[in-house]
C-alpha cells in the first residue's frame, strides 16, 4: 500500500515538473472556457428561458464550463499514454517493481493536478466578468477536491479508449467524441429536466452531471441537497473506471 501511494505520488510529481517547465497548454486550454463564460453566458442570460433557480445564467454555467474544460484536459491524458506507448516509456515503467495499477491510477490522478491548475486560471477570469462565487474557502477547497478526483475517472476513460485506439491520429477524434456528448447531455448548460426524456435517462448515467451538480452547489448556488449522492456517484464512477483502465492498460502493453 505504501508502495502504491509512493508510485502514485511519483506520477503526480512528474506532472508537476512537466507543468513547471511548460505551462502553455494550460493557457491555451483556458481560452475556450473563458469564451463560454465571457460571451455565451452573458448573451444567453438575455434570453431568460432557462430556469436556473434564481442564479444569473453566467453564474449557473460557470461550474459546468469549468468541469467541461477539466474533463477535456483529462480526456486528452489518454493521448499522452498513447504517445508513451509508442515510445518505450510504458514498457520501461512496466518493468519496474511498481504495480501497473499504481501507474494507471497515478497517471489518472495526475490529470487532476492539471485540472486544478486549469480551474485556478479560469476562476479569476470568471470573477472579473462578475460571476459571484460563495465566499467560503472550505467549500471551494472541497469543490477542488471533487474536481481532482473526478478528473482521475475521466482520465481513466481516456486511458481505456487509448488501449483500444493504438495510434494518436485515431485518438484525436475520439477525444472530442467523448467530451461533447458528456457535456451536452449533462446539467452543465441547462437543467436536466429541460432535456428530451431519452437524454434525461442518459444524463442519469452521465458522471459529469453529478460532478457539475456537486461543484455548482459548493461554489455557486449553495444547494447541497444532493451532495452525498453526487459524491457516491463520483466514487462509483472512479472505482469502475480505475479498474477498467487498469485492465485496458495491460492490453496497451501487450
Amino acid at each position, binding site marked *: 500500500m505504501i508502495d502504491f501511494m509512493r508510485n502514485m505520488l511519483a506520477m503526480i510529481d512528474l506532472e508537476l515538473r512537466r507543468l513547471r517547465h511548460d505551462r502553455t497548454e494550460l493557457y491555451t486550454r483556458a481560452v475556450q472556457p473563458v469564451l463560454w463564460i465571457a460571451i455565451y453566458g452573458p448573451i444567453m442570460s438575455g434570453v431568460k428561458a432557462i430556469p436556473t433557480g434564481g442564479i444569473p445564467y453566467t453564474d449557473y454555467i460557470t461550474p459546468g464550463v469549468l468541469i467541461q474544460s477539466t474533463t477535456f484536459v483529462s480526456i486528452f491524458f489518454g493521448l499522452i499514454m498513447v504517445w508513451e506507448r509508442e515510445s518505450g516509456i510504458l514498457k520501461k515503467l512496466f*518493468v519496474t517493481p511498481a504495480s501497473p495499477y499504481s501507474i494507471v491510477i497515478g497517471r489518472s490522478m495526475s490529470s487532476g493536478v492539471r485540472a486544478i491548475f486549469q480551474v485556478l486560471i479560469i476562476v479569476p477570469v470568471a470573477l472579473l466578468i462578475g460571476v459571484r462565487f460563495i465566499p467560503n474557502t472550505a467549500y471551494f477547497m472541497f469543490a477542488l477536491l471533487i474536481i481532482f478526483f473526478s478528473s482521475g475517472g475521466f482520465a481513466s476513460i481516456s486511458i481505456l479508449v487509448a488501449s483500444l485506439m493504438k495510434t494518436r491520429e485515431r485518438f484525436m477524434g475520439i477525444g472530442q467524441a467523448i467530451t461533447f456528448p458528456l457535456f451536452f447531455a449533462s446539467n452543465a448548460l441547462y437543467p436536466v429536466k429541460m432535456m428530451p426524456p431519452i437524454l434525461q435517462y442518459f444524463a442519469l448515467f452521465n458522471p459529469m452531471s453529478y460532478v457539475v451538480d456537486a461543484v455548482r452547489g459548493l461554489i455557486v448556488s449553495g444547494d447541497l441537497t444532493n451532495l452525498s449522492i453526487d459524491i457516491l456517484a463520483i466514487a462509483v464512477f472512479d472505482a469502475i473506471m480505475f479498474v477498467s483502465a487498469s485492465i485496458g492498460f495491460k492490453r496497451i502493453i501487450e
Partner: protein
Amino acid sequence: MEFAIDVRDLTKVFEGKTRALDGVNLKIESGRIFALLGPNGAGKTTLIRILTTQIQPTSGEAHVSGLDVVKDGVEIRKLIGYIPQEMSVWTDISGYENLLIYAKIYGIASQERGKIINDALKDMGIIEFKDNLVKTYSGGMIRRLEIACAMLIKPQILFLDEPTIGLDPSVRKAVWEKLVSFKREYGSTVFFNTHYMDEADLYSDEIAIINRGKIVTMGTAEELKHHVGGEVIRFTVEVNEISEDFLEKVRKLNVVNEAVADDFEVDISVEDYEEALPQVLEVFRIEHVSVKKVSLTKPSLDDVFVKYAGTRLESTERIREVRQVRDRIRR
C-alpha cells in the same frame, strides 16, 4: 551452478496463430555479456519481453536469477534493468528529473537519491547537462541517460533491446564503452538484442542466433566462426582458362575442401590456410599456373549468420558480393 538466465522449451504464440518463439532453450552464466542475433521477426524482442516479465509465455519455463518469470514477476523486476528499443525517457523534463522519478518508483531513500543520481549521471558523462530538458539531448545522450536510469538500482541483469539502433558509429562506440564499464563495475549480466554483427563480435562473451523462434546456434564469436569452417584463399592468376584437370589436382590435396575457378580467379576453400597454402602453391608451380596475387578471407560472424539464419543482415551491395563468392565456392 546458478544461471543468470535459464530458459527451457519456451514458446509464445500470439493470438493463437503467430508462433513467435518455438521451443527456445538457453542458459546464460552470470556476469557475461550475451548477444542475441536474429533477422527481423525472429523472436528477439518477444524473448526479451518474456524475460523482463512484460508478457507471459504460452508454454515452457524461464528463470531469471533463479526466479520464475510467471510467478515471481515483482521480485524479478526489482533485480533487473531494462532499456527498450524505443526512446524511454520523458523529453519535457530534465535528465535529472527523469532519474528522480524512477528513483522514487524504485523506492530509493530520499536522502540517498541525490548522490545515486549524480553518480549515475557522472558515470555516463552527462552530468553537465543534468538540468537541461531531455528534448535538447542528442540520440547518444538520451541512450546514456537511459543507461544511467538502469544503473540506479545496480541491476543483476541488464536487458537491452537494440541498444544502439540508429546511432552514429562513433556514438555507438561511446555507448558500448559505457555499457562495458557499467558491467565491470557492478558485475551485472548483460543481455542484448542486436542486428549489428560488429557489436556482437566486439563486445559479447557469448552469442546466440535466433531464427523463426528457435535458437539455432550458440557460442563465443570465435567458436561460431570456427563452426562455419573453411577459410577461402583466392588466387589471382595470369591465365584466363583454368582447366578442370588442374582443379581436380588441387581438390585431391587433403587440406583442401573445394576449389573453383572463374575468369582470372581461383577460390580454394581450406580448413587452415597456414597448412594448406604451401601445398596448394606447389600444385600451381608444377602445373605452371603463375600466381599474381593471393588473398585470404576468413569467415566472419556474417557468414555464421548466413549459415544458421539463412539470410543476411548487412546491406544489399555487400550481400551480393559475398553471396557470389560463396556460390562459386559451393559449385
